[in-house]
């Protein structure tokens, strides 16, 4: 009697332990996924000739785009498993340098130190180019106002706290027809470190240097003001209050009722758009002095061409030219070819509201990808 009840308790217990052990085994095999990348190289897979598992990770801004890329790439190459951990750009780059990731996504370009380290890790110049362009919206929630024109100086003053109410003369001057209330302005910024903040502060610093004196940074430069975690957090905070304003990735604003400010470029006011962001990247200069396989942009936020939208982020993909085994190289090459292709960019645009790469940028990237694995 006693023992039978006990047995009834023990059997599921043992089963649970066995399950835990097998789960732990799964977990550890996940870690070594990169080393096992070439395990399946001999067996040709059903769709496409490639196979194996390739691990990557980094920028969380790329997460949605990476999802659609993995789905699209997986359809054509059913034998390949690509993984992407959105652990943050900094961790993505350091894991790439340590070799844990075979490719990495990063919201900011590698520093020259990191390029040196990556060169050592890759045994040759690393590959780096932008793959994900996303406009950043200045979104607001103000009763009775649905459209708003702002220029760089005003945006900087609002986020710095110099302009405190919506009926401030500086805002009135830009919006002569709007009925602006005397509601207090509550600017909302990201509480977590993010590429969105980095690019937004870069815009403020480049376009309104007299107001925004601090350099660009992925962490908000002050500890004061309303803050919220992640894109969804900022969307929630801006929606939750009256008189709020925030900077949000275009994909986050989609489907909300928030107003989106038009930004002054040259003499006209430009609404955020994928095309405008792509034109903005096309109008930017490549950083010189990097290896030929590294395409880093110094983004020009002060263009006066009204076809460009200056507040956007360009997120990079980082990889090696050659890997220890040819199979990993072939998989990475095929994957990068796919994500920079028109199809891949379209998939990301549909899923993450990103901007397709400008054609001349895409063709330069294709030339770099051609060098991988050769």
């Amino acid at each position, binding site marked *: 009697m006693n*023992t039978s009840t006990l047995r009834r308790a023990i059997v599921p217990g043992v089963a649970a332990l066995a399950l835990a052990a097998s789960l732990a085994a799964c977990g550890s095999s996940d870690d070594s996924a990169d080393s096992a990348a070439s395990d399946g190289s001999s067996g040709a897979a059903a769709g496409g000739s490639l196979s194996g598992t390739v691990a990557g990770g980094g920028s969380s801004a790329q997460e949605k785009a990476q999802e659609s890329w993995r789905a699209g790439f997986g359809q054509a190459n059913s034998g390949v498993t690509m993984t992407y951990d959105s652990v*943050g750009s900094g961790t993505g780059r350091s894991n790439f340098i340590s070799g844990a990731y075979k490719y990495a996504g990063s919201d900011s370009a590698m520093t020259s130190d990191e390029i040196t380290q990556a060169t050592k890790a890759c045994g040759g110049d690393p590959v780096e180019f932008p793959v994900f362009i996303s406009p950043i919206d200045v979104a607001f929630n103000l009763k009775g106002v649905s459209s708003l024109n702002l220029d760089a100086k005003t945006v900087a003053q609002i986020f710095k706290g110099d302009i405190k109410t919506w009926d401030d003369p500086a805002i009135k001057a830009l919006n002569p027809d709007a009925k602006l209330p005397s509601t207090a302005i509550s600017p909302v910024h990201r509480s977590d*470190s993010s590429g969105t903040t980095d690019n937004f502060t870069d815009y403020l610093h480049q376009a309104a240097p007299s107001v925004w004196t601090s350099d660009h940074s992925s962490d908000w430069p002050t500890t004061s003001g309303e803050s919220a975690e992640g894109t969804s957090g900022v969307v929630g905070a801006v929606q*939750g209050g009256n008189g709020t304003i925030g900077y949000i990735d275009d994909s986050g604003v989609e489907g909300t009722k928030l107003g989106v400010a038009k930004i002054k470029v040259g003499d006209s006011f430009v609404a955020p758009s994928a095309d405008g962001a792509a034109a903005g990247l096309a109008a930017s200069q490549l950083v010189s002095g990097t290896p030929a396989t590294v395409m880093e942009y110094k983004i020009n936020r002060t263009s006066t061409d009204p076809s460009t939208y200056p507040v956007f982020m360009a997120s990079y993909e980082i990889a090696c030219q050659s890997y220890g085994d040819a199979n990993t190289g072939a998989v990475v090459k095929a994957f990068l070819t796919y994500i920079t292709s028109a199809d891949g960019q379209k998939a990301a645009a549909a899923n993450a509201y990103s901007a397709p790469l400008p054609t001349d940028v895409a063709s330069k990237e294709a030339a770099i990808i051609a060098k991988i694995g050769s």
Partner: protein
Amino acid sequence: MSITTKPESAERQDVAGPPAVGRLGDRLFSASALTAGVIIMVTLGAVFVFLAVEGIDGFHADRSVFEPAAGNFWAYAGKLLFGTTLAAVLAMIIAVPFAIGLALFISHYAPRRLAVPVAYLIDLLAAVPSVVYGLWGARTLASAAQPIQTWLGEHLGWFPLFSGQVSATGRTMLVAAVVLAIMIVPITTAICREVFQQTPRLLEEAALGLGATRWEMIRMAVFPHARSGMVAGVMLGLGRALGETMAVAMVLSASPLVTLKVLTSDNPATIASNIAANYNSEDNRIQTVLIATGLVLFVFTFLVNFAARLIVARAERKLA
């Protein structure tokens, strides 16, 4: 807690003597109890070692890692510890009287027909995941409480806690404390209820027979009997408040700073929510710092629990 109970049960096993030893069930039970006790100790030790080893570099990280919040680790951790304590204390101020009242209502005041479903509902509150509380707090409670906070700011602005520019979104320390309080209430209520019900019937009836009112009976018979259980319940609640991560991270508009104003947009961050918000940071040097702040929280929680046990032990000695 489990550390102190383990040797006791082992001793009891020895005292129980020969007849129990032979049976398979007894041996299995004693072995599994011992294993559970040892595993808890080893886990605690392993967590401490992990935090210490991984966080050691964080104590003297580069100044630029802490900016603009602070200049060095201790200032940074101190500000976060302040926020953690403030949120927990405010939550306890709201939750503890509420939980004790609720527990008394269930154990001594409500008719049985009402007490059972109420107790059941409160237990259900404990099953709601903290991320749901966070979503509800950030999306609904914050905007719903915004007019109330505006009123508090306008009429009671002279009171230091309520001074300053009231937040437009309502995502303030006050709302975070309310959300935390709602999360604490079920744990504290459940434990208080149990210990209140353990009061010997004889004591209660004696008090009533001597002419005490129901409240006097509770004060003289129930509370003294339940004191250590109440402290245990409050401590469990405090533990949850100190360590709560997602709900605070989602509700609170926060950064490491020191302020007592609970209605503004500038709120002190808590250690746990700060770890959640910044662990995936662009600058990954912050990770060792965050682990080191985790160590600070670990030690702090340990000390608070230790102090509470000490107070209870002293109070009980006085009572005896």
